[in-house]
């Protein structure tokens, strides 16, 4: 593998190796650009992944201290775990379930569509679906998304059968959806073996992850240097306000400084704004690239929730793909339902250990016991809907708490918007009806888990005063500093975010390469 000198100021430094950073690294390397990829976690592989929920959680998750505030239930039940995301090479693409849905056209301009929503800080994206379509197609090809590029759909599992039959009774359409999981061998990876441990790292490598696709492909170009267990503490800049170096702690805890021509931040929507805030300087007293004051604000996590139902007969929902089942009938914007935006239903299962942890955190007693007594008879789904961006939902630096590096820990504040609550209640009601239509004995409305979809804390905006970066993810204030993850999201849309993050990364790589060629960066 190539190594670059710390003094080499001609490299692009990318922070984070997940959907955004891992993809961007490969795309740049394929164009011959030199990349140093800094990843806070260790490198695992399908061989080292573990089919065990708690053990895998310990192996892959980001468990550095974080704090929470606000009225969301996560702050009460999981006060130091606002998000269920990963610290490992490949980032949260090791953990994600694979659902890969494009945005709907209207979701790029919801401020215009929804009008004034009290308390919401809505803004239209500086992008259209049409502009993104060619990049979506490339992302789907790269990721092997089923039902695109002549790739067949996945076979439905037992959980899907219950979901599908309920959907039919409700007048919904349901299929095994668009999943970045190989339904047949493709791109050097095998097909899904239906382990049922998508969240724990895919043992067969059938589910797309940058860990064993983008990153090795980038390594093969001879242009990538991946440095693992490197935690970035600060981005530095020169007197003109251009980013010129990244300071990080290496695996031995030693402070290092890598010079850079371009810096791209892809640490997921909690660490990315945290890093910009930690990089405050005389020139940027409120944090790097924060002249708008929007860094850390408009934190979105999708309006989620799960619904599990028990049946007389057995289901064994945990067998096979965790999430290959999608209903999109409620994803449209239809204000007659009493809320703006829409939501998807997606099949979901948890193993017994995590069902105990998440069914009703803090719960106990007869009802709790009865639910788990029926574990083998349970079917489940997840709700993922658009949540409203609010300025007060934000990532800030904690005033006193420090992490193991002595850096201020991030605090994540979240309150549901009235629209979020109305959307979730509608989804709970529809899901209950769906399961009751196929004979559910009992239906459990399960509150949102710690967030896996973290979005919006460095949002894109047409005007510099409204957001942190432009339509290319380039920050308004620092031209050679890019936001390369879901933090760019202007609004959340109803779809799982990974496909769009990958799409934006492919497009951003093209832009960076052109700008570098033109000596504009």
């Amino acid at each position, binding site marked *: 593998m190539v190594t670059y000198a710390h003094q080499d100021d001609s490299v692009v430094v990318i922070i984070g190796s997940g959907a955004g950073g891992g993809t961007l690294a490969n795309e740049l390397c394929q164009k011959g650009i030199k990349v140093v990829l800094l990843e806070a976690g260790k490198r695992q592989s399908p061989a080292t992944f573990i089919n065990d929920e708690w053990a895998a959680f310990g192996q892959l998750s980001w468990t550095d201290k974080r704090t929470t505030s606000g009225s969301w239930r996560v702050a009460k039940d999981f006060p130091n775990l606002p998000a269920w995301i990963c610290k490992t090479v490949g980032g949260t693409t090791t953990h994600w379930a694979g659902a890969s849905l494009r945005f709907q056209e209207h979701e790029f301009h919801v401020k215009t569509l929804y009008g004034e929503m009290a308390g919401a800080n809505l803004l239209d994206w500086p992008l259209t679906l049409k502009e993104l379509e060619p990049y979506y197609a490339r992302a789907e090809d790269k990721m092997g998304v089923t039902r695109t590029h002549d790739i067949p759909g996945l076979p439905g599992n037992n959980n899907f059968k219950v979901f599908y039959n309920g959907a039919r009774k409700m007048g919904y359409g349901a299929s095994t959806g668009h999943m970045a999981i190989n339904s047949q061998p493709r791109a050097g990876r095998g097909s899904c073996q239906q*382990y049922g441990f998508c969240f724990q790292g895919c043992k067969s490598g059938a589910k797309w992850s940058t860990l064993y696709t983008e990153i090795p492909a980038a390594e093969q170009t001879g242009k990538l240097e991946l440095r693992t267990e490197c935690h970035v503490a600060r981005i530095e800049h020169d007197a003109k306000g251009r980013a010129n170096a990244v300071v990080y702690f290496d695996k031995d805890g030693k402070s290092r400084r890598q010079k850079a021509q371009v810096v791209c931040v892809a640490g997921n929507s909690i660490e990315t704004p945290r890093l910009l805030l930690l990089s405050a300087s005389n020139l940027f007293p409120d944090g790097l690239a924060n002249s708008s004051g929007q860094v850390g604000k408009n934190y979105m996590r999708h309006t989620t929730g799960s619904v599990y139902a028990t049946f007389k007969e057995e*289901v064994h929902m945990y067998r096979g793909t965790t999430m290959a089942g999608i209903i999109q009938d409620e994803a449209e914007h239809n204000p007659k339902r009493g809320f703006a935006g829409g939501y998807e239903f997606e099949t979901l299962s948890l193993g017994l250990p995590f069902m105990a942890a998440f069914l009703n955190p803090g719960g106990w007693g007869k009802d709790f016991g009865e639910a788990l007594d029926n574990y083998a008879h349970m079917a489940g789904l997840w709700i993922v809907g658009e949540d409203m961006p609010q300025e007060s939902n934000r990532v800030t630096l904690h005033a006193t708490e420090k992490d193991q590096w002595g850096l201020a820990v991030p605090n994540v504040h979240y309150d549901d918007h009235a629209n979020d609550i109305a959307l979730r209640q509608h989804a709970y009601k529809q899901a209950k009806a769906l399961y009751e239509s196929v004979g559910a004995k009992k239906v459990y409305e399960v509150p949102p888990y710690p967030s896996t979809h973290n979005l919006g804390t460095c949002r894109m905006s047409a005007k510099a005063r409204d957001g942190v970066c432009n339509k290319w993810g380039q920050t308004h204030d620092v031209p050679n500093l890019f936001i390369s993850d879901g933090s760019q999201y202007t609004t959340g849309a109803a779809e799982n975010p990974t496909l769009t993050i990958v799409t934006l990364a492919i497009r951003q790589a093209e832009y960076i390469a052109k700008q570098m060629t033109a000596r504009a960066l």
Partner: protein
Amino acid sequence: MTEQPITFDAQDFPRRSRRAFLKNSGVLLGTLWAGSSALMALAPSRSWALEMSTLDEATGRNLLSFCRRIFPHDTLDDAVYALVVKDLDAAAAKSAEVKQMLADGSAALDKAAGGAWLKLTPAAQDKIVAGLAGSPLFKKVHGTAVVSLYNNELAFAHFGYEGNAFNHGGGYLLRGFNDLKWLPDPTPAASPAPFTGA
């Protein structure tokens, strides 16, 4: 990747050792219930013993029974609840504060029961447990049990969860991922046939 044969880690099973009788720690003894057939397939023998390093037997018994009321599963064998006591004992061994809290909590259960917690009916115990929700004892036992009780192979067998697929025969592609028969099969358009070729 090679698949590994099914193994059950006997270390996870509460078991009897001579050492337990040679020192001053508590031991919980039990016999698997006749109805616990799923567990018998996994256990080295019907009798089990949990040797505690720190807690005494009376405290161990009270905590096991207390845990049964927090997470009640009428047909779940005491042997599985004993795994929670095992983890509480380990926590007590690490912290004198936890040890004291558990001992005091156990004594408080007896006091609330007017003598012996273990002699109360489950219904009478439930009333006391409800009054203790939020107490340090409740939080410690609840917080430990919500992981320990459900994260072991005995519980998996009891509740019908098959656990580690990779170690237990591989993916479900050829062993039941879509074997549900009580509802009609989806159309091939919604759910295509699986790829099983080479």
